[in-house]
């Protein structure tokens, strides 16, 4: 059974259908890309899947359960995590504390446990800190383990956000434009990083404009246009699909 199954998902904003009757499935252990011209509804689709927006209609199954109209914090419990197109890093915290926030659900987060620093909590927290440092090295921001988030450059923050998501040990990770604003070498690094995820048990869905990155790493690609599903298939199928070519390059009239 697929990890995520979306059927007939629709979201209207005052009569405009930003996402219109979109259905697709995502198999565990794959990298799935969502592409489409600007305004095609990619980010809206992300926000619907992750519970940031509620759909106008349509259903969603995630990790074997009905996951309709669930807020992000409930979906997190089911094993979903995401990053954001416009960074959502907590600039009031240290870099490593940001990553440790990702592990929230795996730690005892009671107020009293926290106030009295119970020995079991202290041990778990220390292990969590080591794990977070390890994750920061894994995504390539090991140089910032002792830094404050506000001291880090943009490219590093993008990867810090990925580290925070991974700290939750998610089954499904949605990356909203992980390479946006990065230079070529940074894009290559992110590219390599994403490819390391499915073997580690993390299924990836990404929205991305960088076609080279998408074509290189995706197992399957979903193409949206004007909120509707235009095509879906392997990178090769998508590259040769006449509808996709028309949508991207125009039909030449």
């Amino acid at each position: 059974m697929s990890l995520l199954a979306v059927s007939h998902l629709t979201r209207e904003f005052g009569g405009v259908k930003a996402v219109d009757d979109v259905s697709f499935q995502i198999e565990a252990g794959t990298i799935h890309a969502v592409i489409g011209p600007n305004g095609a509804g990619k980010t809206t689709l992300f926000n619907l899947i992750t519970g940031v927006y509620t759909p106008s209609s349509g259903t969603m199954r995630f990790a074997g359960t009905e996951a309709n109209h669930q807020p992000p914090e409930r979906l997190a419990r089911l094993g979903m995590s995401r990053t954001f197109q416009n960074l959502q890093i907590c600039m009031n915290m240290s870099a490593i504390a940001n990553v440790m926030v990702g592990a929230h659900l795996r730690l005892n987060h009671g107020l009293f446990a926290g106030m009295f620093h119970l020995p079991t909590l202290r041990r778990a927290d220390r292990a969590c800190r080591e794990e977070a440092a390890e994750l920061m090295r894994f995504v390539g921001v090991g140089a910032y383990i002792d830094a404050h988030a506000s001291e880090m450059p943009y490219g590093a923050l993008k990867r810090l956000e990925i580290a925070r998501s991974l700290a939750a040990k998610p089954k499904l990770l949605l990356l909203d434009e992980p390479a946006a604003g990065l230079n070529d070498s940074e894009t290559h690094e992110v590219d390599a990083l994403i490819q390391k995820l499915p073997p580690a048990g993390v299924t990836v869905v990404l929205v991305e404009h960088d076609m080279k990155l998408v074509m290189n790493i995706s197992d399957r690609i979903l193409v949206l246009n004007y909120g509707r599903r235009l095509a879906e298939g392997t990178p090769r199928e998508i590259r040769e699909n006449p509808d996709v070519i028309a949508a991207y390059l125009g039909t030449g009239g």
Partner: protein
Amino acid sequence: MALPRSFGLGALLVVLAVLPAILPNDFYLDVAIRMAINAVVVIGLNLLIGYTGQISLGHAGFLGIGAYASAILTANYGWPSAAAMLAGAIGSGGLALLVARPILRLKGHYLAMATLGLGIIISIVLVNEVALTGGPDGMSVPNFSLFGFEIASEQAWYWVVAVLLLGTTWLALNLIDSPAGRALQAIHGSEIAARVAGIDTTAAKVRIFVLSAVLTSIMGSVTAHYLAFVTPTLSDFFHSIALVTMVVIGGMASIYGSLLGAVLLTALPQVLAGLEGGETVVFGLILIVTMIFLPRGLVPSLALRRLALRRRRA
């Protein structure tokens, strides 16, 4: 970057232990007690405002509930003082819980307005329920007694509030360095990121609001017994503002900043009392100058400068 926890707590312990020996008379001891009481309240308020990013302009209301619960239940109904204090804390916590959900859904100015309204309502009730509270004239409060021991002297009160302050500082430092505390800071930093990480942001905000209300209420009870007299000014709008000012001047999201803010702003009126009316102007000027030159508050701004200096040398 921050001082090790044991060092900070140890320094606080030493200062609190040595202080009564070097203070020349009871007047200074009285000021020290007021500072410590304010510091405990401000630490609780800083957890809410500085760490979680939720403004409350009505916290003096909870101070009033605690103080009057202790005053009324012990003086009029003969309750044991600890039971009255507990009743006040439960009342404050209950009220905070009741209003927290609708209030904490609001953001920024609206949250400030709602908490402001709550504080004003409590204050008005205390002023107008003359039969119960004595109205604007206030009412006297019996000594605090527990297991037959009475806390009456300045010395005794000093040690009580010193222990409360040390304990609160320890608990707060622990909290901010725990998963629950990181969740609060994450809510301040990015609420949507916190939710995606699985943090139930509404529940977390409600909990910290209730916790700070309960802590404030307990210190209200302490204030009532210590002063042996309460008036509604304890709960009024200006006192709420004074508490928030202590948080901001000392430093948002800084426990030691809370201590410093409470100490400075409790001492200032005493120092400026000689100016006969000019003190409000000087008080205001100090606030303005601090905010212009040290906008993050004293402790965080100075910590940043020290860090920058060290980086430059390195």
